[in-house]
């Protein structure tokens, strides 16, 4: 019994490590080859987990081999356009210049209801509002609406505003993040003074404190 428990811990750790090495792509939108590898890994890990007659290494070898293949294929895709085309395919334009391409719809075995559903999910309700709809290799649908129906941007309206920056966490769960404080170019003394000015005596009272995307100080205490 304890063997199964320990095997599960080992295999879980291994699979998490492998997924981390495979990178963020593996947990986001999957390409066909990535989906295959993810399904295979989950199955391979569960077999030696349950069956103690199978040596753990019989699960580890294929998982590591799949990791190796995934990395090689990703590298190939990065370096070669042809490899990218063969492995991931190419995006299909379902709506071209405002008109549905029936042949491509048939090729992708996509019916009109599927297309309409995807379009609605993207926030468009009329087919005539769409100039281009592209079915990406990951299976996601990208939509380019007719220019006159697209949302107006600040640039369109000539509104000038400063560029937003990445929010930086300064205190999390009462603990000061000194690294982020250094990145922000501020000292601990500045942080304490800022907290005092808001009637906070200790960082331990703070649940979260950060410099937001506008560069302003924001905080929330546990009491809030």
């Amino acid at each position: 019994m304890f063997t199964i428990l320990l095997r599960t811990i080992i295999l879980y750790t291994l699979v998490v490590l492998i997924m981390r090495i495979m990178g963020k792509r593996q947990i986001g939108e999957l390409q066909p080859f990535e989906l295959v590898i993810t399904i295979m890994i989950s199955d391979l890990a569960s077999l030696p987990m349950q069956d103690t007659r199978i040596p753990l290494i019989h699960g580890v070898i294929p998982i590591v081999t799949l990791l190796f293949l995934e990395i090689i294929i990703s590298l190939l895709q990065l370096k070669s356009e042809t490899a990218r085309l063969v492995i991931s395919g190419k995006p299909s334009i379902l709506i071209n210049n405002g008109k549905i391409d029936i042949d491509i719809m048939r090729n992708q075995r996509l019916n009109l209801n599927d297309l309409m559903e995807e379009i609605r999910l993207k926030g468009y309700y009329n087919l005539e509002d769409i100039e281009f709809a592209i079915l990406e290799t990951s299976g996601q649908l990208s939509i380019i609406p007719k220019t006159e129906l697209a949302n107006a941007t600040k640039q369109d309206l000539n509104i000038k505003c400063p560029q937003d920056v990445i929010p930086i966490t300064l205190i999390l769960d009462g603990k000061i993040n000194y690294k982020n404080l250094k990145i922000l170019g501020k000292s601990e003394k500045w942080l304490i003074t800022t907290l005092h000015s808001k009637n906070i005596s200790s960082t331990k009272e703070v649940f979260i404190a950060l410099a937001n995307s506008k560069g302003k100080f924001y905080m929330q205490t546990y009491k809030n």
Partner: protein
Amino acid sequence: MRNVIITIILFSTTVLICFVSVKYLNKISNNIHTENTSIMNNIKDGDWKRAMTISTNMSKDWHIYSNRCSIFVNHTFIDDISLEEHKLEAYIKTKDKDEALASANSIEFLLERIKKLETINFENLF
């Protein structure tokens, strides 16, 4: 790039483990095969005492080998060989020639089977 390097190291280690395990498996198979063959010859010659001595040695050797190769060989095969090996010892004790020879043959077959399963050939690949 770091991920690529880690992957290459992991994969190379895996390939190395495969090589070492197959080599070890061949080595222990040959050792057990030699001992088993001499047990069979002694049984055929009616030298039960000598067969018993070799069988005890083989049992000791197998105990050490089985612990190590259980890391990379399906435990069912190891259990089957252990069982046959115990049977062989009992048949030698009772001087049952037919059963002892059958058990020795089984051990040989099982060892060959483990070795064959690790061979890269058309049959194993598909």
